[in-house]
């Protein structure tokens, strides 16, 4: 069964702040070579198409950041505080606090949203975790937040955050290198920039049997089924979602100044460019090196880096595109 979610925006709700934090500890991907080569052993990924088509190279990532003793929630808290201070928003003004972490929660298995609610003094916030173990959690959290803001007038500000720490192998399959980090967004009514113009997502429930519990540690992840059943449709679904959003807004890909995509590999960036028939330089590529794939944080990291690099001029339009195991695909159109 395919489930689609397509809220149409009427303007006014926007991403008015974004920040990310990385653990201090840097690990060269060369040190992870054993994991990498293990992931390419015969009978596994090497028998499939992934190594040829979507495989990451060690050089293009160079290094990732890895947690090493930082307290749970500390990086996410820093990222949120940076946004709140910049926007001069107090903790008590936050009406909604959503955790979109993918692979990591507090030690007791419960979302970090309560701990951060306390640390921020966000007494008035409704707390929620959109955490299905998939990188798509970020965009699904974004859609959820927009739906809340549209339906609850008393919510002026929503904070979305994640803090992901991988426990186990960092190549799985070798489509990317998993890094650790935290990210946060401020969603705001009557925002002056980062306006969310449209969103769409597509969930293919018929693929749910490909995953199992703890799939990022390779337990119950049917890689062969992923390759055989999901990969043939991956770029088609992505492309159709993009075109649907653009058509609804009476835009074309020529109206998009920059595409922000998940940081998987150079091959995957090139695959997206080919699927959308756009030049690779219209996709933001610089977030992969030094970060690897940090699940839902990828898009926030790329948003921050692109803004810093002056690539998101006021009034320009960007597409946020990502997908996640489970399997969901999502697109957000924003006006910077």
């Amino acid at each position, binding site marked *: 069964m*395919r489930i689609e979610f397509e809220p149409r925006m009427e303007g006014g709700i926007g991403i008015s702040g974004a920040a990310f934090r990385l653990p201090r500890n840097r690990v060269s991907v060369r040190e992870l070579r054993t994991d990498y080569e293990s992931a390419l052993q015969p009978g596994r990924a090497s028998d499939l*198409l992934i190594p*040829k*088509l*979507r495989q990451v190279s060690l050089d293009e990532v160079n290094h990732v950041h890895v947690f090493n003793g930082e307290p749970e929630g500390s990086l996410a808290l820093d990222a949120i505080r940076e946004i709140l201070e910049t926007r001069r928003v107090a903790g008590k003004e936050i009406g909604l606090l959503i955790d979109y972490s993918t692979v990591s929660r507090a030690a007791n298995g419960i979302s970090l949203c309560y701990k951060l609610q306390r640390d921020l003094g966000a007494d008035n916030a409704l707390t929620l975790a959109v955490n299905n173990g998939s990188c798509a959690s970020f965009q699904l959290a974004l859609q959820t937040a927009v739906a809340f803001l549209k339906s609850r007038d008393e919510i002026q500000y929503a904070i979305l955050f994640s803090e992901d720490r991988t426990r186990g192998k960092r190549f799985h399959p070798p489509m990317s290198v998993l890094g650790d980090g935290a990210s946060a967004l401020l969603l705001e009514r009557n925002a002056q920039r980062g306006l969310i113009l449209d969103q769409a997502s597509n969930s*293919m429930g018929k693929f749910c049997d490909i995953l199992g519990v703890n799939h990022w540690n390779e337990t119950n992840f049917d890689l062969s089924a992923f*390759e*055989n*059943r999901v*990969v*043939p*449709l*991956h*770029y*088609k679904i992505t*492309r159709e979602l993009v075109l649907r959003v653009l058509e609804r807004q009476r835009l074309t890909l020529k109206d998009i100044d920059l595409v922000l995509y998940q940081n998987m590999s150079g091959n995957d960036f090139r*695959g997206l460019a*080919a*699927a959308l028939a756009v030049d690779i330089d219209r996709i933001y590529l610089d977030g992969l090196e030094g970060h690897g794939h940090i699940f839902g944080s990828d898009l926030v990291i790329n948003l921050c880096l692109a803004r810093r690099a002056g690539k998101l001029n006021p009034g320009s339009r960007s597409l946020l595109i990502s997908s996640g195991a489970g399997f969901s695909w999502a697109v957000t159109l924003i006006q910077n």
Partner: protein
Amino acid sequence: MNEIDNNTIRQNVLDYLVSMHFNEYEGDVRFDTPLLELGIIDSLSMMTCILFLEQKYGLDFFEIDVSRNDFASINTIATLVSRSLETQKTAVAAQ
């Protein structure tokens, strides 16, 4: 779907693959050429091939159980199309 139709599908797919010149493959492409093994079809060319088949035969691949192995050769692609058209025809007749 009868034999003639299946041959037509195979020929249409062959013409399409030759015209697209996927991955700059220079050898002959026949009905039994191993498309995946030779790298003629990858995940990107698979996507464009799926779009071609949807447009040409009115199929919806969201509703079809498609697998990478269905793209192993032109023969298997034609079988996929024939099977899907038959399923689609049966579903319409049942309505």
